[in-house]
Each structure stands twice: as structure tokens, then as C-alpha cells.
């Protein structure tokens, strides 16, 4: 769907149209869910956070200002990122490794997912902000400007963070014996 059509749906939803908001959900829920799941690695919690993200989006639609430089999805990722940060901040218990689910079980293509297992394991070892920037930039395919908006940083800040994240990921892969492939 084109961004113009999305913006029309957003306007309708902002006027209280549930159906339009339902269509926005249908359109973006998978992307937002995949992003959240990659951060929390627990399906149930990711589903709860997904609902929270869209509820926050509904409640803030009146404040949403369309930006010609950023898509509506950028705004949703921004909410998702803050919600995940809040989730980690308020979560008192330390997540044990055995509580992290094997995401291959829920992958749309489990076999293919398993082929990339070495990459996901390295991802888990990354600091949260590095994993977030790599996910947004290369898995969700957001450009530097959109990432800057989601994470509240400058373009330069994003480029520096991305460089450090890639360097760190390579270092972990190397440590795990996957530095050449």
C-alpha cells in the first residue's frame, strides 16, 4: 500500500474510525511483532507488547503529525521501541536463558531460520541498542533518517552506532568461530 493511502487511513482512524485502524493494524502488525519479538525473545510477551504498541498508537493518533521525510511505520516503530525500553525498565526479574524461547518454533520458515542460528546467537550477545539499530536498518529496512527518528538520534549518531554495531557483531561471530562464511 502506498504511503498516501496509509495516511488516508490514519486520518480516518484519528477521527475514531475503528475499521481504518484495524486495516492499519493488519498492515503493520507483522513488522512490529517481528521487531518486538527479536528484542524480547518471548512470544507471549511480544504479543502483549504488540497490543500495547497499537493501543498507544490509537491513543496518540490525534497528536500524530505526518512527516514528508518519514513513513507512518517509522512512528509505529518509535512507539514500539519506547514500549520495549519501558518493558525492560519495569521488568524486575532478570531473564534467565532457559526462559528465552527457541524462535525457530514460531518462524514462518523454520528450516531457513535454523540455517541462520549462528547469526541469531551472536545477535543475542549484542548490547540492546546495537541489536535494535541492526534490526531496524537491515531487517526492517529503515533508512538512516527513519532510524534517527525512531531512536531520537542524529544521522551521524545513527551511522556511528551502526558502524559500532556491525563491528561488535563481527567480533562476536569471530569469537564463536563464525567469522568466515
Amino acid at each position, binding site marked *: 500500500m502506498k504511503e498516501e493511502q496509509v495516511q488516508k487511513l490514519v486520518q480516518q482512524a484519528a477521527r475514531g474510525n475503528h475499521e481504518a485502524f484495524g486495516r492499519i493494524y493488519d498492515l503493520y502488525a507483522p513488522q512490529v*511483532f517481528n521487531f518486538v519479538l527479536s528484542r524480547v525473545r518471548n*512470544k507471549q510477551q511480544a504479543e502483549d507488547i504488540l497490543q500495547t504498541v497499537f493501543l498507544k498508537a490509537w491513543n496518540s493518533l490525534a497528536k500524530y503529525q505526518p512527516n514528508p521525510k518519514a513513513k507512518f511505520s517509522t512512528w509505529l516503530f518509535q512507539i514500539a521501541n519506547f514500549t520495549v525500553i519501558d518493558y525492560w525498565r519495569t521488568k524486575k526479574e532478570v531473564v534467565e536463558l532457559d526462559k528465552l524461547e527457541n524462535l525457530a518454533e514460531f518462524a514462518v520458515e523454520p528450516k531457513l531460520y535454523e540455517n*541462520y542460528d549462528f547469526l541469531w546467537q551472536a545477535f543475542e550477545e549484542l548490547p540492546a541498542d546495537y541489536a535494535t539499530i541492526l534490526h531496524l536498518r537491515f531487517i526492517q529496512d529503515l533508512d538512516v533518517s527513519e532510524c534517527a527518528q525512531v531512536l531520537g538520534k542524529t544521522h551521524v549518531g545513527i551511522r556511528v552506532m551502526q558502524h559500532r554495531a556491525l563491528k561488535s557483531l563481527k567480533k562476536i561471530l569471530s569469537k564463536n568461530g563464525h567469522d568466515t562464511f
Partner: protein
Amino acid sequence: MTPSNSNNGRKKISDERLTSLLKKSPASFKFNQKRIKESLLGQIEEQQLNKAAELIKERTKVSFLKRHRLATAFGTAILVAAGSGAALSQAGIYQPASTINALGHVQEEVMLKLPLPAAQKADIQMRVAENRARKLEQALEQSESPHTRTEALHESSEIMSQAIDQISGSKQKQVERGRSEAADKYSTMLERLAELANQQEQKVEELIESGVVTDNNAELNNHLSKIKSLRLKAEAQIELTSTEQ
């Protein structure tokens, strides 16, 4: 960036290779998209119902001082309107009371046409139905004009019918989504409408029996049968949906 060589001569991963690997990685997971959507939309509707309920509470909790100020301001406005209206009515131009009443109806109609969420619309419809029922009571008891009574009878049953249809539809949606709490709030509204209809039935029956109002007997009987069927409709909606729940 070009691939760098490691000590054992193997090519080390470059930034380009790593980013292309990340882009190709299958990061798509299954989840219950439909269930979350239903739950989300139900939560939104419930939130709106709660907001509407809070608004009503706030309105009824207006402090004495505020009420006093409002009453003074409203009284002044009425006096000004009545004063200028009286002058105009003396000149045979218009009647102040009916003008104020007509303005209220226009506002109500505008509010009913606003593209509001179902919960807020139901709340407004409830209040409009209550308002019209009150006006009907006044018209039946106080008005000397058969035309005013006929108009009030017609408007009251029409508004009541719209409110029952709208609220029943909203309740049905909540039942289908499994949101029993939100559905119960609509049930309460339907119960109130059925109660209003019942009060009107009694009033109209009383008037017919007493023979005080003779000009509108046909309309009164017609309204009585309409309002009875509306009450039965509201009661059936409460029963129907609660059985499904």
C-alpha cells in the same frame, strides 16, 4: 569495504557481506494476529465507554459554586432571550420558548451526525432519548397546542427507535468479539431505554384514560403501540444477546 584477510588466509566477513546476510535472514514469525486484533479493538471500545462514563460522572459532579455560576449565566441568557423574544413575539414575529427548544434539537441532530466512536455515539443517543422523553412529558402535561404534542410524540419515538437500533448493534459487535464487560455496559443502556419506554407507556395510558387530552387521541394510541413495540424490542435485545453470552 573490501574483505580483509585473516591470519590463516581465509576471507574475513566484510560489512557488506554481513549486512546482506542480515537483509536475507528470515526474521518472520507466526503469531495470533486475528486474536490480538479482536482484543485490541475491544480494548479500544471499552476504553471509550469508560471515558464516556467518566464524562457523565464529571458532568453530574459539578460543584455547587460552578452550578450557581452556571445557573446565573444561563438565567441571564434566558432573560435576555426571553426579553428580546417577548418584544419580537409582541410584534408577532416569533415565540421565544419554541426557538430555544428548536436550537436544542438542531444541536442534538448535529451531535448525532458526528463521526464519533460507537461508545460515544451510544452515550449521546441515550442522552438525546432521555431529553426527548422529558420534553414529551412536558408537552403532554403543559402544552395547549395539539401540534406541539403530535410533534413531541413523533420525535420521541423516532429518537428512541434510533437509539435502540444503534446501541443494540454496538452491543452485538461486542458480544461477537467476546467483550462481555463492554457488552454489559450497552445492556445497561438498553435497560434504561426500556425503562424510559415503560414510563412513557404508563403516562400515555393515564392520559388516554383520564380523557384530559382529547385532541390527540389517535396520535396517543399510535404512540402507545409504537413505544410498546420499542420497549419489547429493547427487552428482546437484552435477552437475545445475554443468552448468546
